[in-house]
């Protein structure tokens, strides 16, 4: 929604009245290369009440690079397809109260309700193929929306539970205190439980602000959870929801 609110400002600055006379530019196809940065999270839709606060959000090397081509098919409408290589990472710290965790290590499970700090790290390097419908507002501004499919080739999902305690099994179970240093906190990592394919929807805009150079914003909303269906460490399904900002260069 913020992106939508942002767009009139962009379009104002990009206003170019001469466009209305000559519309031949609308028939040109566009080839762009782009680099960008993803910022966002792998999070449940609707934070459960057992997550109490965000303590820290650390930047991750969530870069993207790639190229795409837009072919116009009717007046201002076109279709875009491309190939990107990107990372949707996350590194954040939250506090929880009675949050259900099921930490599995081979056949041994540590299952219970956790109250305390959790630092969660996610790394998802992937190839992404977007297929988007585009709308050319004017020469410099183009909106786009459509699905994407990603193939993950390097993935990590893990973290630590520290400075808190776990009630084993349920709130009446024995308490297990987690400390604030290594060997005193519970680490977990479950890269093998992550899905290899992700699917989602992306909406965004490209603003060609100077000659062939452009800026872009995108919101990528994952519709598949990042973890496989039988994953139980966290109760909720975690969706990758990332905003993307980037620079583009139009080759033609």
């Amino acid at each position, binding site marked *: 929604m*913020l*992106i939508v609110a*942002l767009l009139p400002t962009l379009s104002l600055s990009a206003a170019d009245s001469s466009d209305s006379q000559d519309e031949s530019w609308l028939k040109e196809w566009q080839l762009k290369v782009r680099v960008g940065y993803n*910022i*966002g*999270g792998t*999070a449940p839709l*609707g*934070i*459960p*009440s*057992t*997550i*109490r*606060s*965000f303590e820290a*959000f650390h930047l991750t090397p969530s870069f993207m690079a790639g190229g795409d081509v837009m072919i116009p098919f009717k007046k201002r409408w076109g279709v875009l397809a491309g190939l990107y290589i990107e990372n949707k990472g996350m590194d954040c710290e939250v506090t929880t*109260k*009675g949050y259900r965790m099921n930490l599995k*290590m*081979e*056949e*041994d*499970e*540590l*299952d219970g*309700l956790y109250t305390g700090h959790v630092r969660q790290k996610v790394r998802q390097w992937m190839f992404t193929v977007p297929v988007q419908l585009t709308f050319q507002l004017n020469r410099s501004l183009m909106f786009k929306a459509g699905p994407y499919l990603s193939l993950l080739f390097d993935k990590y999902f893990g973290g630590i539970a520290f400075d808190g*305690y776990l*009630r*084993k099994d*349920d*709130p*009446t*179970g*024995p*308490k*297990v*205190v*987690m*400390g604030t240093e*290594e*060997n*005193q*906190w*519970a*680490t977990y990592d479950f890269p093998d439980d992550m899905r290899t394919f992700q699917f989602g929807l992306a909406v965004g805009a490209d603003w060609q602000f100077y000659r062939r150079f452009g*800026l872009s*914003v995108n*919101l990528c909303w994952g519709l598949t959870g990042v973890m496989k269906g039988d994953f139980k460490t966290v109760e909720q399904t975690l969706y990758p*929801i*990332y*905003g*993307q*900002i980037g620079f583009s260069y139009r080759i033609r």
Partner: protein
Amino acid sequence: MKILICMSLISLLLVSCFKEEPSNSECDIIDAWVEGEELKAYFYNDADMRIENIPSGDQKIVFTVRSVNGLPPMALHLNMTSGAISNPVNGSVQDFSKGPVIYTVTSEDGQWHRQYTVSFTKVVTPPKFNFEHYKLEEPKNKYYMWYEVADDGTQNEQIWATGNAGFIIAKPNASADAYPTTPDVNGYEGSCVQLTTRDTGKWGKTFGKPIAAGNLFFGEFDSQYAITNTLWTTKMGIPFTEEPLKVTGYYKYKAGPEFTDKNGNVIAGRIDEPSIYSVLYRNQNAAGEKVVLHGDDVLTSDLIVSIAQVASLPETDEWKPFEMVFVNKAPIDATILADRGYNLALVFSSSKTGDTFEGAVGSTLCVDKVEITLKK
């Protein structure tokens, strides 16, 4: 600018969805006490009128009194998890002379309950232990615990403790016989207790605690520190009202094949050893506060008045006797002794340095027919 917008977009997505804090679902009794000048006479000392920091796994709260007969009805005060309520009501007067009273604690959210059995008894620790009385720990029946039976048939579960409650965190699926402390029907006479140093698996390694020595000791095990401060899990010692002179018994020992350090690396040539010792210490400090020694200070505290240690326990497949004589470090006050002012810790472990996670997986110490010789 755009970075800011994007970041605010994301944080909006996330932060805007915080919900109201859920009510507490825990329902523990943390401290329990009785108070009043008129009640002091029924207790050996004032410290016995309070039981604090009750381990989260405990379901029994036992007060020790001089005599149960003639015990007046008393108001029991409880410190519970915030928002929890109890039935009978916190602070209500109950007649404990008729036997234990069951308290049901309900959590603030109303969803969870815990039952505690509160009793006032005259605890007598016998001087002889044959390890015939053991059962699976309630309510989950995952591992064994040991108790003693008095002449009048009452069971006393307050004497022996083991580290089994910590092992369940590392190996929740282990069968009861795969725990570090288990019974063995092939004792010197009847059953004995068998202590085995165990591998704690992946979780143990994660927490830098690759092994768990089998142990059995006088006192209490508080599993909440199993990860953060293992030495604090062992609350060593129980009040003891007579002066011990020596401890005798029978043992068998076999060291495990590979001695490993706390990182799990094999130390070639080092042979594991068991450990049997006993310590009598003053259980109150100068300020009159209750003191319990833990794994980290049970052999070094200034409060120790007497120590006994078995010098050498060679490997043996046959039952062999052992004996350790108490050596006094400080004078023992007869009045303080009679008023439960000293704690006795009696400790058996399958790996002497198991408290620092050094030992050999498979080291096995069997113990039976233990007797404390008391000063007449």
